């Protein structure tokens, strides 16, 4: 392995992380856009996504299927988990997030943090042997029988990782189109910009908030599913760190701006990967360095990378 191929491998690993961070960060930005709250339970929604898909994998019995049925079940599991977790996201928004969103910022902060802990502990208590690491099956390997990865001068690009990446990119593009080109997207942007004015124009604000939470939570569920596929193990507290990272990524990019969230997600992942690779003893300090970058952004550019467009939100 040459140092160039090590570098390329590290960049690729960073991209894989980045797509997962981005999908979580987008949720933070969407919610902040329409409700002006930072939903700290979002990381745990991501964890729920992973657990719900694991349950669905077992319920559908897809592991014993093969061929077209297998692919059908795989897609079914992804879509169902997104719908279920999206629905749960709306449910939590109705009972916790929206009621406190009008109060002081501190209230929504504490309430969503509490909600996150409640979700996390519920999974630990009610999922069978919930405090243990759970194995997540390698679903995509079956799609590429025989060969697992392309190897190019020592750089390993696994087919399943490439597929995860492709799905992530497609979903992000679809989201951008949805927000910018459809009527619903227009109304979301309108509520984000000025909820009261939008209401006066006949926009059903509550519906828009529900839709936004559905989309954000469904994307987090997808990220959870991808995370399971990527690491092949999930655990009840995986959402805690993921939530903080997702939020930081959204802040780096400019809270409220979905492109910012995506850029922020990739930037955070790259800072982590490269500091682990290039700085001596970097792997011990990569989280420290990544969060130091977040602090620098908060101090010197609180509106984030794409901050000047923040007035537009979402």
């Amino acid at each position, binding site marked *: *392995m040459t*140092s160039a191929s*090590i570098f390329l*491998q*590290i960049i690729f*690993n*960073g991209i*894989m*992380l980045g797509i997962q961070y981005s999908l979580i960060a987008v949720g933070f930005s969407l919610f902040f856009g329409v409700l002006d709250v930072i939903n700290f339970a979002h990381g745990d929604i991501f964890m729920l996504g992973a657990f719900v898909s694991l349950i669905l994998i077992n319920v559908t019995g897809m592991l014993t299927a093969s061929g077209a049925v297998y692919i059908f079940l795989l897609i079914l599991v992804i879509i169902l988990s997104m719908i279920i977790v999206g629905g749960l996201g709306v449910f939590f928004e109705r009972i916790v997030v929206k009621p406190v969103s009008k109060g002081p910022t501190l209230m929504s902060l504490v309430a969503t943090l509490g909600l996150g802990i409640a979700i996390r502990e519920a999974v*630990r208590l009610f999922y069978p042997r919930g*405090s*243990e*690491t*759970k*194995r997540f099956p390698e679903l995509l390997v079956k799609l590429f029988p025989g060969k697992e*990865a392309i*190897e190019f001068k*020592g750089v*390993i690009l*696994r087919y399943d990782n490439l597929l995860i990446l492709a799905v992530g990119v497609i979903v992000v593009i679809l989201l951008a189109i949805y927000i910018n080109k459809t009527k619903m997207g227009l109304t979301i942007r309108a509520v984000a910009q000025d909820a009261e004015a939008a209401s006066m124009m006949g926009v059903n604000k509550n519906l828009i908030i529900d839709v936004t939470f559905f989309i954000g939570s469904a994307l987090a569920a997808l990220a959870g599913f991808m995370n399971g596929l990527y*690491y*092949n*193990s999930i*655990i009840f*507290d*995986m959402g805690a*760190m993921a939530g903080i990272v997702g939020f930081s990524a959204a802040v780096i990019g400019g809270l409220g701006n979905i492109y910012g969230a995506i850029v922020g997600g990739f930037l955070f992942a790259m800072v*982590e*990967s490269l500091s*682990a*690779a290039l700085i001596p*003893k970097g*792997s*011990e300090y*990569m*989280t420290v360095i990544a969060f130091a970058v977040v602090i620098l952004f908060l101090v010197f550019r609180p509106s984030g990378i794409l901050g000047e467009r923040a007035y537009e939100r979402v």
Partner: protein
Amino acid sequence: MRGSLKVVSLVIIILLVFSLLLVSNYGCKPKEEEKKVVKIGFIGPLTGKYSKMGIGGLNSFKLAVMQQNNSGKNKYTYEVVSFDDECVPQKGVEVATKACSDPEIIAAATHYCSMVAISCVDVYHKFGLPAIVWGAVLPDITYGNDYIEVSRVNGTQVEQNEFNAHFMVDELGFKKFCIIHDTTDYGRGHLKYFLKALEKRGIEPLSIDGVTIGQKDFTTILTKIKALKPEVVYFGGLTAEGSLIKSQMDKLGVKAQFLGTSGIKSDDFNTSLGEHAEGTICMLDGAPIEKMPGGLEFKKAYEEAGFDEPYEAYGPFAYCAANIIIKAIEKVGPDRAKVAEEINKTDTEDIIGRIHFNEYGQNDVPLVTAYVSQDGQWVPWDDSLYAKGERELPGFAYREGREWVNPYQGP
């Protein structure tokens, strides 16, 4: 008239009460004098990621106390009070203080997690509570102080890593090591003593990388390690990170033997990795349960007691800790200071063999066993298909530049 009615009813009531008292006295046989109840504590991770280890330890501890209470030989009846340290140092100090400030608790068996144990030793010293460590392996817990209150029944990282290096280098002939450790005191301890043991054999590792607890992505350091082409990747840390490192090694095509410490010796490692666990080596203090002098009896008693959870790696040590505590209290009475002194003099035989505490309160009868993951189980090396030559360690195949075919057949 009314007055006499009152008197009569009063008399009847009094008679009724007396007759009740008589009946109740008559109904019971005259009892032996109640034995005094003495409380002893157990502290371990009962919730959280390492709850299985904690509950296995607690059950074993309870089993010993149950057996002692039923034996009828003792002067006191023992009651177990358990505390949950969650494998979190802050929480550990909190519950240790709680245990110490209950004057009825005379002694305790404490901690599976080293980083918790090391933060709590000062508490035990300050309050004078005798504490026998049943699972934590960081040497400084006993060797880093001269507290009479703190002792340990299981081995330490010193012996474990010495044996680990001996096994891998002298017996299996590996020479090129990359080391990963977690950045807690526990992980750094493993690093320190494994390095020392390698140095003794004239080997310098190709790389040393620290990782943080809770980290999920190790691809960057594994990419660097892959380029160094080691024969063995050593991980000094616990199961959560260890299983992720192993699975990411396989995904990135790091063709090396994976080697752990006692930190990954849990069923969780095998269940969360499935076929990817196959061929992993780890170490554990003590003999395998079947080879311990009283191992089979312990296993049988544990099964008969009907616990839902397995006793896990350190259950037998928690069991011995209970016996040592009870023996000391029987001898000197429920007095913390005297019990601490008595425990420090321990030189006894129990299910794990001889237990002798040295001047630091450390059991210095070291015995370490190598285990290999075979079909989803940790099998003592000597009993494994690998030692018999029926299966080949991944490290051997890779060392010779061959591909390794995973022989995993499911648990």
